[in-house]
């Protein structure tokens, strides 16, 4: 079972979908328990997988060294004659880059499942969409085949569109269509690059089988792979014998690029004045930056959050934004490393812009949920900054920050939901002195706010600190982040403290008062047990990770080291080759 545990993780929600669809509407009370059971099981599995991964002893993939628990099945194979052979694999696996993300999405999905208790409309559709979303999210994080990745990536849009558009607030149609179009625009850019990559990359494993070097895929050795790579680069393999693939690990090695293809380093094709590889880098980057989101591609986020129901907000902030960051480190950086080296300061500029600009915006917000949404953009800026730094501490910090932000933003949106459930109003200025009426809620919000503004002993501090250390380290060594940017980024910490504390002061402290416009049926009840069950674990996780960040950082760091090796060895090589070749 251990070998198939990743597939089980991905498809468990689809199994849960069957009883959900079969049960009649009169039994709609059971739906939420089905979803909960699925999420609970998934979380247990994810924790199990994480522990399995963090302990040494798990066998790594014989060919793609870093990956563990890989599963590889042939999915679609079409012989295309002279063009070669098309091969799409069901290829999933675990490494340091996605192991934390799997854990995060399982946890956030579980929290969202509990949070969905308050949903009352169209239960069957709601939970069906939630389960589909669950499958696509995990599939996206675990795929090692770019086609599979893209499939899951796109498939997330459908449930999200309906979840916001049907169960959302008053302007839900506007928000959902905006979310959909923004993300779709990014997807198109990604798709274009994927098609180009498909034509350019050969799968050395399958090619060696086809060439008769090995009997089947399992029998292929590392030796065969390097033989095939050598033959490929010296153009000894006939075109029709090349097996094209979407394998992400294959794409990270320049040796697998077919000579004369679009994305080979020696290509002379230009696109809008840029070498095609650079253009492809930018297109892929942009596609994921929209998802992240980075300023100025972020305006879909506040609207989507404000209109989305609480559980969907939690998923959106907790998981979906992370796919942007994950896409960057999984595909953009290793596949086009020279773009990272060449455009490093451009990316870090966007990161610093996100940090400071979004924080300023959060300061100007009057809607609690919008304030939190902008703070999300600001915090995701630290993720981008860490990635842009290209240093071990920076990228480790970025991955840590993604996890930490996933936990904290889930908590923050839940907290906003708690208030909204009671009054149906989110105006910051409409409340005062909530602490006297809801003391436990105030404690929870205070902890979450301080954790988000980067107070040590909470996870947010570690993420931001590592990003900043990495950024400055980059200024002094590889120069990807200029000095002024890493110094400006520090300001984000101050502005973050400002808007969180100001909100705390205005809404929670002072004498109790609420605006006359707010109508509420019953009293301001403090947190009920269901809300406690959601918020307390999140607070414990952020606290534990803040004190023992090694739990999360240590399993990740090996893969990050390899990634950085790829960026700087092949990135600099590629850049040099391209510069010699065409005086860039």
């Amino acid at each position, binding site marked *: 079972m251990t070998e198939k545990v990743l597939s089980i993780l991905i498809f468990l929600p689809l199994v849960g979908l069957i009883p959900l669809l079969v049960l009649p509407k009169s039994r709609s009370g059971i739906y939420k328990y089905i979803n909960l059971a699925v999420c609970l099981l998934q979380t247990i599995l994810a924790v199990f997988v994480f522990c399995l991964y963090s302990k040494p002893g798990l066998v790594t993939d014989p060919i793609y060294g870093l990956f563990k628990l890989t599963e590889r099945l042939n999915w679609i194979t079409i012989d295309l004659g002279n063009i070669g052979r098309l091969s799409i694999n069901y290829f999933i696996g675990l490494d340091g880059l996605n192991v934390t993300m799997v854990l995060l999405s399982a946890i956030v999905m579980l929290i969202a499942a509990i949070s969905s208790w308050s949903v009352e409309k169209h239960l069957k559709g709601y939970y069906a969409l939630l389960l589909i979303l669950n499958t696509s999210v995990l599939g996206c994080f675990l795929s090692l085949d770019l086609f599979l990745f893209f499939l899951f990536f796109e498939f997330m849009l459908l449930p999200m569109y309906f979840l916001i558009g049907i169960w959302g607030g008053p302007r839900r149609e506007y928000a959902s269509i905006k979310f959909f179009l923004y993300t779709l625009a990014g997807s198109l850019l990604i798709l274009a690059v994927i098609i180009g990559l498909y034509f350019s990359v050969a799968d050395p494993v399958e090619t060696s089988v086809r060439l008769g070097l090995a009997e089947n895929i399992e029998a292929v050795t590392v030796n065969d792979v390097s033989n095939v790579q050598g033959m490929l680069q010296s153009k000894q393999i006939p075109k029709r014998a090349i097996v094209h693939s979407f394998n992400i690990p294959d794409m990270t090695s320049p040796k697998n690029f077919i000579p004369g293809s679009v994305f080979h380093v020696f290509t002379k094709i230009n696109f809008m004045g840029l070498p095609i590889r650079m253009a492809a880098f930018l297109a892929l980057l942009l596609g994921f930056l929209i998802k992240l989101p980075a300023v100025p591609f972020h*305006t879909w986020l506040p609207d989507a959050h404000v209109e989305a129901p609480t559980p969907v907000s939690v998923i959106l902030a907790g998981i979906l934004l992370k796919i942007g960051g994950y896409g960057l480190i999984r595909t953009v950086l290793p596949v086009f490393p020279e773009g990272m080296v060449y455009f490093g300061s451009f990316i870090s500029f966007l990161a610093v812009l996100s940090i400071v*600009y979004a924080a300023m915006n959060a300061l100007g917000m009057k809607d609690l949920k919008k304030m939190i949404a902008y703070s999300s953009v600001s915090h995701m800026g630290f993720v981008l900054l860490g990635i842009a730094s290209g240093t071990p501490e920076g990228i480790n910090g970025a991955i840590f920050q993604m996890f930490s932000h996933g936990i904290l933003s889930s908590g923050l949106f839940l907290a906003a939901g708690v208030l909204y459930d009671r009054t149906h109003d989110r105006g910051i200025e409409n409340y005062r002195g909530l602490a006297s009426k809801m003391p436990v809620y105030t404690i929870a919000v205070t902890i979450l706010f301080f954790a988000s503004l980067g107070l*040590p002993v909470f996870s947010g501090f570690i993420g931001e600190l590592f990003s900043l250390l990495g950024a400055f*380290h980059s200024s002094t060594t590889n120069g990807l982040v200029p000095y002024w940017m890493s110094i400006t980024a520090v300001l984000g910490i101050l502005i973050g403290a400002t808007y969180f504390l100001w909100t705390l002061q205005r809404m929670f402290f002072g*004498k109790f008062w609420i605006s006359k416009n707010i109508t509420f049926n019953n009293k301001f009840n403090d947190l009920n047990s269901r809300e406690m069950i959601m918020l307390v674990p999140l607070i414990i996780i952020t606290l534990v990770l803040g004190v023992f960040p*090694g739990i999360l950082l240590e399993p990740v760091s*090996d893969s990050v080291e390899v990634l950085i090796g790829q960026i700087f060895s092949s990135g600099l090589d590629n850049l040099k080759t391209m510069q010699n070749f065409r005086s860039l």
Partner: protein
Amino acid sequence: MNSYLITDLDNLVYFSLIAALLPLSAFFILFFFGKKLPRKGDWLATLLIGLSFILSLLVFFSVWEGRAGSMTFQWIALSGIPENAFSISVSIDKLSSFMILTVCLISLLVHLYSMEYMKGKLNYTRYFPYLSIFTFAMLGLVISDNLLITFMFWELVGFTSYLLIGFWFTKEEAVKASKKAFLFNRIGDLGFLLALMIIWSFAGTFEFQYLGDSFEDQSIWFTLAGLGLVLACIGKSAQFPLYVWLPDAMEGPTPVSALIHAATMVAAGIFLLAKVFFLLSEDVLTTIATIGAITMLMSAIPALFQNDIKKVLAYSTISQLGYMFVGIGAGVPEAALFHLFTHAFFKAGLFLSAGAVIHYMHEIKHVLFHEGVYNDFDAQDMRLMGGLRKRVPLVFIVFIVCSSSLVGLPLLSGFLSKEAVIGAAFNWADSYSNTNNSFVYYLIPLSCFVTAFFTALYMIRQLMMVFFGDFRLENLIPYLNAKHEHHHQSLLISLPLVVLCVLSFALPFSLNPFSPQSSWFLKEFNQLFESNLEFAHWVTYTTVLLALAGIVLGIFTYRNKVYISDKAEKSDVLELFGHNWYLEKFYYKAMVLPGFRLAFYTTKIDYLIDRLIEGTAIAYVVLSHIVAWFDKNIIDGIVRLMATLAVFISGFFKNLQSGKVQQYFVYTLATVMILIYIFFNWMK
């Protein structure tokens, strides 16, 4: 994780770790179960901090016997990063052991005092956990031997002081003051973060023991890292230009002010500067001395114009911290630490005495309320006090002793440490003027002298206002005259006062109360820093004379002053000091307003981006409508035209096939004729 790297273990490391962890456990127990415990568990917190105090005494004495200890854990192990880059270190040496002792002692006294002072106050359940967690953060800060871990505790101290300052959370001013304190500290922390970033990039470690080796070249980054740390200390130790948060922080409960704004939190900056002293370049030290000199003068003068009993003490604290800054800047950290040590006791004594006075005033309010005479006077306003020496005699004695120590009168502890600082400042100015041939350096000892004079002046003013003359509240509320009773201090309040009073004398610190050099404290620390401790005698005489002059002038000025008049005191002078030399206004105009304006503009930019996106979307829809129209009318039109044509043509040809023989005959004839015509033409 948690594997030992270095083990130089001694019992005292464990002792101090336990001493730090006891208040943390008190926090957790009281935070979760405080409500269920008798007396809300205040005795438990006090007991645990008492244990910490005993441990800290043991640690202190064993360190003074010459022992030391350190311990290092690996915290985060990452591949690609040096092994001991992120570790947790504890180091027990002279510096940390004396800080542990100070923190534990003051914290214990404040705990005892609070059990009486805070009794029955709103939210009492929360008070002791907050005190405990603050003590924990402070102890962690002083025992840590890793700059990163120090920073984490540094921030925690800021956070816990936020909780304590904003303890009366329903009071708008208290909440605002706590926010202000945290944000001004955060400005300083930006400097700390930058220093961390620089140190990380150039040294690759945060361990204090390795830091010295890594910064061998005196590059610009070396200075900048030092300046970043100084900025952090300016924030935490309330120095110019960030000191404005401290007077406002007096909104917190008074025992809290004694703990965090006299002895511990504000002292953390001085402690850190002493700890990283070896990292500070000469330029940085000069900056520190200048800032200290500016601060002490700038805060001593407003102290003369405050009417709130605690605000006078707050400004006085800022001013004394300025002395400590000068001590560090003058290159004699042992003098600064000595002043920190003595100041912790006499200032805590002053704050706690002020608290006792406020407590007394509150009791009067309470009595009045029960008698049906409701009068909501400000219990901290010194203009309503006066003549209290007869009512709270013990407090009066403590106050006299502690304030004399603050003023720096001989026989008291403040005398020793202040002389050391001023002497150091003078030596420093002497050597700098000689080498640089400029007298500008003498401004710093000069400002120390002037401040010593002002210190005497504002303290005597406060003494006169609170303890001498008539009890002015009685004049306002004649009813009180009848209730002329002697006030009994609870033991919980008087015990801490007496302890602090005793510790304000010079004898515990030096067998010869007239000579700073002979104090055990300076002697011990001189082994660590090895700076020059030979001070000119005339400096001492001058300081004492200036203080006496201040006292005499003060007695004559404030003896018969009328404080309560119908006309509100309003003058330019008050306006100036009410706003901290317009610093507050400056911050408001230069930082807060532009900040909000910027926030407003960024929301507008976002609005524009949104409209741009929507415009694109609308343009897209319009375009698709145009395409649809084109499709419907042009493309479809052509198709339809074709169809119509086809119908028309087919209609024409359909008519040909009518089935009438005559018609067919005519067609055939015509065709044959045409063919014949063509044939003949062709033949030609």
